[in-house]
């Protein structure tokens, strides 16, 4: 539905006609007949809901596309052909997906470990210098845009100090794990900074709340060491809401971290979406949106399943 609303309706609302959309495909200098033929071929003359249906069936069952010089098979899930390069989109997605996944997973590991531990320490040492410093940095981390932190860190750590990769390169983990991590280190940290800040604040708030619960007092009254009280009884409860937010964030990231990928010139899905938008390449943009939607949905499902494990009160309902 969302894809329909956004990507099939929007061009029309923006004043695009079937002809002007076909022009993007064949080029401005093409003669009117070619344009008309293209309109027919791409189905721009059909009503919107039919176009949408064609696209959906393509995704689900695949379709045969008439390229003019014969037909080409686009097997399911068919994401269509690029208006610009005339090449199918799926292979490009497959190629770009590992980049985005690597970026998202690495950053997630950093921000969860870092964000949550800073949050816990801040909550326990509430009002201390550590807490104040951490929360100030967190505020900065939330407020600073990635294209700024990304470029500044690139300038300092890659170009000035030469510690990290200059960006733009990606090595699959299967080829060379060390090079993989080296290439991605700076993007990971940059992306993680934003999220760590948010997670530190969330964890801190959650811990402050749980640590004042009655069951924490019970745990102390049993004679448990403070560490066990904090981790087993406190953090365990405080983490539950964080898992929810993590699912959403992670799903969105898999659909492409546009800003990070652009700042570091990483050939991921986010960059693809940006290129698609810039060059009016509608199928590319739709493909990325679809992937994002799918992963957000999957991650939400996983979150719900994890909830069953985390919170026994959900199970019996």
């Amino acid at each position: 539905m969302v894809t329909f609303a956004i990507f099939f309706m929007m061009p029309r609302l923006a004043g695009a006609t079937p002809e002007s959309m076909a022009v993007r495909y064949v080029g401005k200098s093409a003669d009117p007949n070619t344009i008309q033929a293209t309109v027919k071929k791409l189905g721009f003359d059909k009503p919107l809901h039919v176009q949408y249906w064609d696209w959906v069936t393509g995704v689900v069952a695949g379709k045969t596309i008439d390229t003019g010089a014969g037909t080409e098979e686009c097997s399911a899930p068919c994401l269509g052909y690029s208006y610009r390069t005339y090449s199918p989109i799926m292979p490009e997605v497959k190629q770009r997906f590992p980049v985005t996944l690597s970026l998202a997973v690495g950053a997630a590991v950093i921000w969860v470990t870092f964000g949550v531990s800073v949050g816990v320490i801040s909550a326990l040492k509430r009002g201390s210098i550590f807490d104040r410093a951490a929360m100030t940095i967190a505020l900065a981390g939330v407020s600073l845009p990635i294209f700024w932190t990304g470029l500044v860190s690139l300038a300092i750590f890659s170009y000035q100090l030469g510690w990290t990769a200059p960006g733009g390169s990606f090595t699959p983990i299967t080829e060379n794990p060390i090079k993989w991590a080296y290439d991605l280190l700076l993007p990971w940290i940059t992306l993680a900074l934003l999220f760590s800040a948010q997670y530190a604040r969330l964890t801190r708030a959650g811990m402050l709340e749980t640590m004042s619960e009655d069951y924490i007092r019970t745990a102390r009254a049993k004679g448990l060491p403070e560490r066990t009280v904090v981790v087993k009884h406190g953090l365990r409860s405080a983490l539950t809401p964080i898992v929810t937010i993590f699912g959403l964030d992670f799903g969105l990231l898999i659909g492409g971290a546009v800003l990070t990928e652009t700042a570091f010139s990483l050939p991921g899905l986010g960059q693809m979406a940006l290129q698609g938008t810039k060059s009016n390449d509608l199928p590319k943009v739709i493909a990325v949106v679809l992937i994002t939607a799918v992963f957000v949905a999957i991650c939400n499902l996983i979150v719900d399943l994890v909830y069953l494990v985390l919170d026994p009160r959900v199970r019996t309902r």
Partner: protein
Amino acid sequence: MTTIATESIKPSGAGEGPYLDVRDLKVHFTTDDGLVKSVDGVSFSIERGKTLGIVGESGSGKSVTSMSIMGLHTAKNAKIEGSIKIGDEEIVGKPIDSIRQLRGQKMAMIFQDPLSALHPFYTVGDQIVEAYQIHNKVSKKQARQHAIDMLDRVGIPEPSKRIDAYPHQFSGGMRQRAMIAMALSCDPDLLIADEPTTALDVTVQAQILDLIRDLQKEFNSAVLMITHDLGVVAELADDIMVMYAGRCAEYGTADQVFNHPEHPYTWGLLGSMPRFDKPPTERLLPIKGTPPSLIQLPSGCAFNPRCDFKERVGERCVRERPELLGDDHQIACHLPPSERQQIWTDEIAPRVK
């Protein structure tokens, strides 16, 4: 021979004198609004096998007292003075880590609302096992068996099944039983029950009190019962301490406090207790006014703004704080003892008895 005989009759581990001995306990909190004197010079003691009931309104310092015995005041702004002796161990000033060793093992606590006092994410069994394993080096299996035994002892049916249930799957009474099982799992010598029945149904209340009494006999522990419900202390307590504004107003045996109370505040408490043996047309006699702010206590006797009898003493009630006087029945009031007894038998007893 005789000494040996008496020794052997005594319950194991019982020393001479009281097991819990609190002397001149002061718990003050520094806040932005000023110094809060939550507990200001309170002394009491409990022997093994005996029960002391601490009674008072909200904010009278009952819970703060019990928390300081457990060493649970972790806030940096809490200042604790005086002496709390458990067995031979002095709690005040003891490093938190050694107090921790005593918790659960020598002293255990039952809390007011068992639903919020039990962790929602762990099974009842896990929580009892955890409490047992801190102080006893036993295998998981043994600990589990012990937990089942404890649940059985507190009257939970089918304990070997219920042990794997979560707190939310228990009823309120069951939860409090589980809480008690947890508190007693390490066989503590001192049991502190902080409003153990307040969150429960009336029918369940009586069962829980019965249970605490039975277990106390069985474990021969000292019980500190904190409550605002005079009915609860009437049921259980050997001694009663009435607290008002962080200080002791009246302290004596249950018989003395219930049948011969001498403090106007105790009279007020007795008058505001609903009774079933009186016709419902008679009104309760609530204490007028509200408990004072602990930051700015009234000068002189803290109870003077609410006291019906201060005209009979005059200026002194506003000027001078009454000391807790008496041998075994102690009262902090400026009224002369004979006049107090007179007022009780002539004016108060006919109304509340």
